[in-house]
């Protein structure tokens, strides 16, 4: 849908002296998309709402994708529910950023917040954009051991999950909490940073 407005010419404008505002034209566009989650993501969401985390294990290389894309991008092999595996809700921080929000349009956060990648035990793909709680920001580090903080069942939704690969599981798992275990060694995560 378009909503365009062209600034009306000012009366009495002199020839050869076009006012700048006459050169501005608003063209506001909004496009609407409706889609169903792919079968693999739909299954992931159903299980997630139940408190389980599932992915697909590539029948060729054995890598575990959480959530599944429905194929292994390295082997170029399609995967299906027959390749489904469950992983646990504990894992390792493989990377993180502490973001100090500036008040740009749409930014609701006011305090510094964490965007961390968490590699769940048994998975080969980290979950990105996760909040880490139970530890001061200055103590965040790669290798930190964490566990999922699940929202109460009645508050869970599939809201943030889309076929397009952005958004995350935040509508079900609100954050990951530091467990206090000894850090994982670099060997665990060096091939799975992002």
């Amino acid at each position, binding site marked *: 849908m378009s909503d365009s407005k062209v600034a009306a010419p000012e009366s009495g404008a002199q020839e050869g002296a076009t006012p700048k505002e006459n050169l501005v034209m608003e063209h506001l566009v909004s496009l*609407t*998309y409706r889609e*169903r989650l*792919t079968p693999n993501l739909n299954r992931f969401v159903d299980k997630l709402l139940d408190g389980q985390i599932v992915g697909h294990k590539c029948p060729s290389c054995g890598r575990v994708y959480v959530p599944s894309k429905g194929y292994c*991008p390295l082997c*170029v*092999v399609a995967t299906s529910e027959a390749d489904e595996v469950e992983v646990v809700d504990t894992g390792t921080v493989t990377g993180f950023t502490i973001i100090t929000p500036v008040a740009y349009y749409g930014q609701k956060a006011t305090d510094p917040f964490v965007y961390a990648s968490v590699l769940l035990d048994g998975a080969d793909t980290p979950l990105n954009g996760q909040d880490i709680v139970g530890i001061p920001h200055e103590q965040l580090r790669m290798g930190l051991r964490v566990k999922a903080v699940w929202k109460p069942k009645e508050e869970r939704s599939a809201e943030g999950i889309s*076929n397009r*690969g952005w958004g995350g599981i935040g509508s079900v798992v609100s954050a990951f909490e530091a467990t206090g275990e000894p850090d994982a060694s670099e060997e665990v995560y060096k091939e799975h940073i992002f």
Partner: protein
Amino acid sequence: MPGSDIAIIGYAQSPSVRDADQSEVQLLVPTVSAAIEMAGIDRREIGFTCAGSCDYLTGGPFAFVSNLEAAGAWPPISESHVEADGAWAMYEAWMRLLEGDIDIALAFGSGKSSPSNPAEVWAQQLDPYYLAPLGVDPASLAAIQARALLDAGKASERDFAEVVSRSRRNAKGNPNAQLRGDVDAESLLAEPYFRAPLRKHDLPPISDAAVAVVMARGDRARQLCSRPAWIRGMDHRIEPHQPGMRDITSSASTTLAARKAGFDGGPLDVVELCSTFSPQEVILREALGLDAGTDINPSGGPLAANPIMAVGLIRIVEAASRIVEGTARTALAHATSGPLLQQNLVCLLEGE
């Protein structure tokens, strides 16, 4: 031996459907793999890959990046992307092969129109000052073109209906088509107008699908394929973006592209045209100088399945497949882009 020493030796397409369950890349994974398997090569032998798609269709910024995963992009490969139909991706890959230092190239095109409202999306490809703000959708533009054809005395509404009737009939033999069946022109003409003088059936369906081709050069093509579809020439030409600045009842760019691709009016066994709206077949037929006896779109064409960003490359695959299967020796395939046949690509194919 035809003009170019490059041939299509492998191809595949996914069936066109109204609303696919899978993601665009999930449609591509088995399609690209099947084309590579048909070519009888290992994907690591591919020297260049080019993909065509449009992120506006699924509404996912950088969707084209994950599409590349269908080609196996690790370890890194030499690749490119065009925000255009796969036919233009194939053009770029063909150009790359002409350099002479690689033997095999892969091109693919994919599109899921189902998540979007095409009438909203495609209004945005028009110029941002005069037409896009009006929200002119492709069907309305096509109706203006149809009206101009009728006013010029170049076609009748019956001609449009005959195109649709033949498309649907031909599509009966195409397992990848979406709309097929026996409908006579008489009953089509009895339907109400959708955008006068067009009726709903004069418009293409909304489709999701993917298509891929593998090309090889010279002796490598002959080794891999018993009947390669040699690309005698490929060319594309562009007319003014603003439909009001050109004669929309003709297609000068198609005529020129065909000539530059090497088409001299000689006999053609197969013609696949990207006539997305039924009146456009009348225009393209005239632009190419095809006589009344030429059988057009044996696959059913875009009126039977219109996966935008794949539909043009599908025309080339449909034409090539008949040469590879041995039922045709010469073929012409056409792809289009932009409003009302603004850009046109012609690919001339020949068997040995």
